[in-house]
């Protein structure tokens, strides 16, 4: 990591922005801040950063919060990575932004080291899953063995390996621990998690839709 990662902090609480900015290490360089949807969309288009820390709840725009910023910045998605931040681990807050294109999410009580790790991981194109999000994924895609995908490219199902990885993350394992538990490399764990993220974003699986609709996420 020779060149610092350029990040933007999108959050309507100035205190929180200041706190994150102060706690970030030198490897992360804050180049933009915004407090509402419209400003966020504008600064992201003016000076696209590498990674955006995106709050889930925000005023402005059409009232869509973080998910709206993601959809309105859809043209930037191959250059800019989004990491969603939420005050809590609730499905209500998070699945909408993941579906809209965020590469992962962390809660706001995350400690600075974990936050910069998460930013670096998202910057490398990997996904960041918390235990709770892994639980949601298992819930939404089903845990029964009949739900397993035979081929990895099936969008509506998880492969056996992906299910195992999700289960371990849901148990509270770090990626490194998942890797040593399953005798695979951290890189493989990351690729599994990325695959699950892709399925979560692209799947039109009936259960997922119903599950999200029941929680008023779609």
């Amino acid at each position, binding site marked *: 990591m020779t060149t610092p990662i350029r990040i933007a902090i999108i959050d309507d609480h100035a205190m929180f922005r200041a706190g994150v900015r102060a706690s970030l290490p030198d490897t992360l360089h804050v180049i933009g801040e915004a407090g509402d949807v419209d400003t966020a969309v504008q600064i992201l288009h003016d000076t696209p950063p590498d990674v955006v820390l995106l709050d889930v709840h925000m005023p402005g725009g059409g009232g869509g919060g973080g998910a709206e910023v993601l959809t309105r910045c859809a043209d930037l998605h191959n250059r800019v990575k989004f990491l969603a931040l939420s005050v809590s681990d609730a499905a209500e807050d998070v699945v909408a932004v993941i579906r809209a294109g965020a590469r992962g999410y962390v809660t706001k009580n995350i400690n600075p080291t974990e936050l910069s790790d998460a930013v670096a991981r998202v910057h490398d194109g990997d996904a960041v899953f918390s*235990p709770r999000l*892994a639980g949601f994924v298992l819930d939404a895609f089903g845990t029964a063995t009949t739900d397993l995908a035979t081929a990895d490219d099936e969008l509506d199902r998880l492969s056996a390996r992906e299910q195992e990885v999700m289960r371990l993350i849901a148990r509270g394992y770090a990626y490194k*621990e998942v890797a040593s538990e399953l005798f695979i490399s951290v890189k493989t764990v990351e690729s599994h998690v990325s695959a699950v993220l892709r399925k979560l974003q692209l799947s039109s699986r009936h259960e997922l839709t119903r599950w999200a609709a029941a929680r008023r996420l779609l």
Partner: protein
Amino acid sequence: MCDDQGVHTSPPPAPERLPLRRPPSGQRIAGVCLGLAAHLDIDVRHVRLGMIVAALAGGLGFVLYAFLWITVPRGDPWYEGAYHAGSARAAPPLAAPHTPSGPNMAAHPVFATPWWSRIPLRDLAVGAMLVTTAVLLVADRLGAQLQWTLVLSVIVVVIGLVLAWGQLNESQRGTFAATVGGRSPSSLMRVTGGIALVVLGVILILSQEQGPQMLVPALVSAVAVLVGAGLVLAPWWLRLARQLTEERASNARAKERADIAAHLHDSVLQTLALIQRSADQPGEITRLARNQERELRQWLYQETPKEGTSTQEAARDIIATVENDMTAALGGQHPVTIDLVVVGDTPPDPTTHAVLQALAEASKNAVRHGKPPVSVYLEITDTAIDASVTDRGPGFRLDDVPNDRFGVRESIIGRIERRGGIARYRSLAAGGTELRLTVPRTLGATHSPASAQSEKS
């Protein structure tokens, strides 16, 4: 928040007689007989029979019925008798001989209503009708040549007007949700029927002079004028309707905001006050904040399933209790947070109860002996319950625990094994301890009642 309505809560004395009202349902024609029966406390069939007999005997019944129809307001006599008897009695008479310009009149609820609602429309209509009838009868007696077809036409028009305006009167009263806004099918039928009757009556009046051959053109032109007027007035009416809807929505929003304000005041401010008082106890602050977060989330999303229907909910409750208890046990100096992830759900049964108890016990141990973060994972499928408690402590070997220590062996492993499950402790390579339990669910259903009994103890 002013809540002084609850002060005068002495129950109103039961009315000896229900108020005279035309009930909104169960009526044959306009509910006159039903309301009369309720008021006089006699069988409605007797009232109807009497009314029919009176109607056959010279038409007295018709007149009486029409009179009561017009003068008796609609309403649920039982409802109003039960809830409004006291206030109705206490209210001053509407026809009080005050001038509305008095200094303290505006504050009075009766005079705060718009002026037009104070005009006794009903009484005026009845009076006018009676006077007209009397004049007609006297004129007939005096030998004037009355055109009875004209009189009949006028009567048709009047009935149509009564139908249509009665609808308006009811929506003003707003007694019944269904009629508010005039969207109910019956109110629509009333308006349509009223208009049809008025049109018919007007055409009848107009076609008095001309012959019946003029009837069809008159009908066509009348309908054309009505349609034209309707087209012109439609936007205005639509705008009115939209404004009404918006106003209702904003009222609902204001109410919701008031609810939220009340809730914030009651619970969040309390918690903030408590947090300020326990500034020297980081653990206690975390506990208060987490409890408040749970409560607020539950309150905002209102997704709490009914008690005893969701194992997820039971798991959240039991882990919250563990957090609270352990914070107190550690003297409030150390934040106790347990991350809970639940996959799947089922109504609680003895098996889930046993698993939750074991998880609670295990997470207490993890908080006491391990290091945070403590994670609890619970996966419920149709065939099994799979759970784990993970901490980052120094690790733990069951063999190191003396045999007389009951906690782990009995309340965790024993409990699970009695359910036909497996519970194993192991140390993680990266540091920390993990308890994994798996309990088959089909076995739980056919479990012997004896051990189910022992589980509850």
